């Protein structure tokens, strides 16, 4: 699976992110206080302004500290009732229609249909739920203010903080129920969509090997064709049936009789809906062709620089450093064949190789080694033929033999502190292997697929809660349509915040907004330098200001796509607790200031006093 940004350990992430969050929060609070003080100073003088600001601060602390759960729940229940009144159930109808017709557009005959099905349900749910959250949260409070129904609430002993929090919680509760039901429907849709069976009759099998005179032969054949694929079936002398992997799955087979003939009936597909639990390396480093340390490998001309390549027939190597490789994690009872190392290497050939054999062209050989911590040198474990764009499983034995015949224990001798180095080299000269850090990992176990799907929906839930929070915050001081637009803008900005950040940092080819506009109008390509002069200087100056603004905005916006786990779920990788926890905390980190801001905005409105 492609992971373009590193997921650092939780505590390490927390320590840096928390400080960063406090700094930004401090900056925003300070700016708000100074701004308020200045505004009041202009009207009433500095002393009064100081007193005013102090009072608001103290009121805020009191209001937040004295939030009563009972009143919050009452407010939340009001929000739930309002949502039901607004017929949120329409979303179900839309979702059902989508699922009904989705089968037309999703190709179960694709080589990875599970990916397509899962991506579809997660994306469709995400769009629908976010839209629902957007409308509910942004339009609710302004409508209440406009209809004066809020007056009946504010006349009761209820704090503005409770009104805002109640709305957020109420809409979240409604969204959560909706999301839960949609998750259930999605699960059924995916399982049913991918479900299929095959058949193969005795007559379809042909003998390929005579074991002994009088003994039955090994027979082979192909199953019936369903979803545009067939499986190769081998029936051995004892009647055992083996089904080859095809389109990423296999089937269990049972033999039965039909019209006096043995018919092998296939069970449901297996191996498609999985949740691998990978142990990724802490670090990937390289050796260059002379054996010296290098920051990265070679670029073979790919536009996408995700993978680095190492040259074959040289000392070039890619070295993954894993941590926490212990017997507790990989007990012999569960891993009798050794530690399963899964690899998705890319192969780049500078020549085609031997093409005379009409059946095949030999693959490129690689060597898999583990690092000896005492010598720092690799000990070869096995040779392998690289398979690109597919997951290849190689096992690292628990006992490794050195070239001089010594037998080393993998855990005691090679990973005494849990740190294990895995070396990969390309054996054949002038051919290359490409790799990234996440391309090689140990498969620690398989998690439950449905739990992983639930985690995928948890990611959508986090996005939903954020949108509700932001929508509720805007709705405290903007009219309905404007709050809707502002929330939508924040949502879109959040999805593109990384791009905005890059643009703000000047890392995007083609310059800032004004330069891009100028290039568009004058049809200049991105590479061409602008001619020096006053015009270019002015464009660049304006862009500098705008880029700074973009950078600040992107830093404040939540990166919505970071909360999506659909790629993990669709590609069959477990969403780790670490990742889920980071996203949950990140979501909370945005929600707290958003809630406080919402409370302050509502508090300053006439209606809430």
């Amino acid at each position, binding site marked *: 699976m*492609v992971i373009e940004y590193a997921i650092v350990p939780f505590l390490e992430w927390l320590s840096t992110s928390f400080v960063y969050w406090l700094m930004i929060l401090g900056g925003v609070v300070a700016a708000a206080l100074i701004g308020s003080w200045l505004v009041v100073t202009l009207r009433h003088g500095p002393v009064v302004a100081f007193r005013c600001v102090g009072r608001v601060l103290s009121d805020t602390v009191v209001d937040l500290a004295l939030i009563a759960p009972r009143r919050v729940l009452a407010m939340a229940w009001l929000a739930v009732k309002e949502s039901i009144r607004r017929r949120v159930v329409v979303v179900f109808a839309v979702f059902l229609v989508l699922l009904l*017709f989705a089968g*037309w*557009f999703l*190709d179960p005959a*694709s*080589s*990875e249909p599970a*990916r*397509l099905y899962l*991506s579809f349900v997660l994306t469709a749910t995400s769009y629908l739920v976010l839209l629902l959250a957007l409308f509910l949260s942004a339009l609710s409070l302004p409508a209440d203010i406009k209809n004066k129904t809020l007056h009946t609430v504010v006349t009761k002993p209820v704090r503005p903080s409770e009104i805002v929090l109640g709305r957020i919680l109420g809409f979240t509760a409604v969204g959560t129920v909706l999301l839960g039901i949609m998750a259930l429907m999605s699960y059924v849709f995916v399982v049913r969509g991918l479900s299929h069976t095959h058949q193969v009759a005795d007559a379809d099998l042909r003998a390929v090997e005579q074991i002994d005179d009088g003994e039955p032969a090994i027979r082979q054949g192909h199953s019936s*064709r369903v979803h*545009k694929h*067939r499986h190769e079936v081998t029936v051995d002398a004892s009647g055992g049936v083996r089904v080859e992997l095809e389109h990423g799955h296999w089937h269990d087979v049972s033999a039965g009789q039909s019209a006096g003939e043995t018919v092998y009936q296939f069970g449901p597909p297996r191996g498609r809906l999985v949740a691998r639990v990978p142990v990724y390396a802490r670090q990937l480093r390289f050796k260059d062709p002379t054996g010296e340390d290098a920051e990265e490998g070679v670029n073979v001309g790919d*536009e*996408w620089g*995700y993978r680095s390549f190492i040259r074959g027939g040289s000392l070039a190597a890619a070295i993954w450093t894993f941590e926490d490789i212990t017997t507790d994690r990989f007990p012999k009872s569960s891993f009798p064949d050794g530690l399963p190392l899964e690899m998705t290497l*890319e*192969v780049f*050939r500078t020549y*085609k190789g031997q*093409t*005379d*054999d*009409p*059946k*095949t*062209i030999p*693959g*490129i050989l690689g060597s898999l080694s583990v690092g000896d911590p005492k010598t720092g040198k690799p000990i070869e474990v096995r040779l392998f033929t*690289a*398979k*690109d*764009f597919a997951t290849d499983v190689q096992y690292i034995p628990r006992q490794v033999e050195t070239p001089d015949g010594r037998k080393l224990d993998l855990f005691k001798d090679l990973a005494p502190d849990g740190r294990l180095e895995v070396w990969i080299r390309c054996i054949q000269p002038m051919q290359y292997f490409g790799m990234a850090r996440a391309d090689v990992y140990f498969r620690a176990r398989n998690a439950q697929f449905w739990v992983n799907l639930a985690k995928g929906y948890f990611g959508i839930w986090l996005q939903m809660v954020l949108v509700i929070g932001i929508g509720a915050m805007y709705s405290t001081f903007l009219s309905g349509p404007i709050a809707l637009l502002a929330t939508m803008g924040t949502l879109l900005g959040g999805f593109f915040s990384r791009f905005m950040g890059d643009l703000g940092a000047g890392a995007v080819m083609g310059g800032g907004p004004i330069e891009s506009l100028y290039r568009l109008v004058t049809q200049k390509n991105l590479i061409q330098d602008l001619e020096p002069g006053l015009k270019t200087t002015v464009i660049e100056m304006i862009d500098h200001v705008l880029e700074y603004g973009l950078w600040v905005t992107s830093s404040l916006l939540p990166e919505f796509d970071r909360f999506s786990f659909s790629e993990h779920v669709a590609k069959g990788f477990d969403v780790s607790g670490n990742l889920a926890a980071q996203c949950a905390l990140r979501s909370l980190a945005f929600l707290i200031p958003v809630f406080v801001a919402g409370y302050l905005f509502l508090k300053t409105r006439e209606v809430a006093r």
Partner: protein
Amino acid sequence: MSPQNTFQRKILYLVGIVVLLTLLSVLGRPATRGTEQAQDSPGGYLAQLRQKSGLSQAELGQIDPTSETIKLATFGMRGVAANILWEKANRYKMKKDWTNLAAAVRQIIKLQPNFISVWIFQGWTFAYNVSVEFDDVRDRYEWVIKGINFLKEGCQYNQHDPRLRWETGWTLSNKIGNSDERRQFRSFFKADDDFHGDRPLAERDNWLVAKSWFRKAERLVDEYGVKMKGQGPLIYRANAAKCQMSYAEAIEDDGVFGEVARQAWKTAADEWQEYGKIDLPGFGGVVIQLNDLEEREATAEKLSREMDALQEGLRGQIREEKKKTLELTNAQREAWETPPAERDTAQMILADEVEQLLKVSDPEVARRITGPARKQAQELAKRSAANEAVALAIRKARQIVNFEYWRMRAALEQLDDTLAARELVYDGSQAFYDGDLDTAKRTFEDGLAAWRKVLDAYPEMLADPTAGDDLMDVIERYRQILELRDEQLPKNFVLQDVIDRYANRE
């Protein structure tokens, strides 16, 4: 605004709506098929225009409910949606996410099933660009077939488009038959039940299947008058027959000789002959048939002779006058004075230039004839020039498709000696791969001797560079065998003339 004004405005709107709907109804009336009681109706103006331009969906090809639904669901924004999907497809391709690339492309074609360039571009992407990214040759084949199936699907949606048929034929022939992996691709193709269905084993050859697709494209051009955009008929009409030649070559590469190979070459020769009979647009706007060159040249020569008879010796006289006034470079003079058999390639070109300068055309002769024969001379010159123009156009066209080489090749490949020569060289190569150098050498020598006989029977073969290069490959393999035995080519080597002519050719 008074109630009366409002009422008038409403009436006006109503009248406007009625007029517009009536107009729309008349213009958009659909065409109907005739019954016993009523005749065919061509429909309204819009229906007729649609019919004329072949724009109705039923006319264009298969109607797919999925495609129609997705088109409707985009509310007229399908261009924008296709653009976004195209962008996504590019990103998936860059990130080598083939599953999503295929899914995005499928969505694009659902949105725009009659946009031919999309089918061609993405079919090419699958068969050529994606397939080479895979290391395992079976994966590569799978993507080549995906590309071909994609193009075939495009044909179903676009039943009158010859380009898609041509592209399908091209991918089947060029990608499967000419890649570095052609041995593997051809063997996988033969065994591909999913692709062929119940097609007999003997017909499961990529070249033969490609030929059938090229023929389909030609039929669409002939039957519906649809143009093959971007290609002239000289080229695309040659494809089917060339596929038959390539088929014959390929089965010999696979070790199939004897009557099967002879029959394959005979079919190729017949099809090439048929290709030579097709009316083609030629250079200078004339209509040509490639087979006609010899006849046109003979007619032009006959007419020249008739003109020469009107005033004997005049042509020679004009040529002598030209010789006296002609200014030649030293190189041209030296080349021209060298006997033709001793000229090297550069000299041949220079001597040809001089000959062209000295050539006396029929109109030149006609202009010098005076008296009562002048009118007849001008008439003869005109007819001769017309024939010469057609002959020139045919010569140019023949050069483009290497017509004469393939005609000669298809004829001589049917000979017993050629078949024997090829079989012996094949057997020798097999022995060489098996490491049996004695057998390889002996068989090669028999094969080379058989080639000698062919060259003696068809000396013009030696003059053709393509045939010369083919023979040089055979000689090189023989030289390899000798080198492994620490031997060298014998001094009186049987194909020394081929080496002399082609060994140092660039």
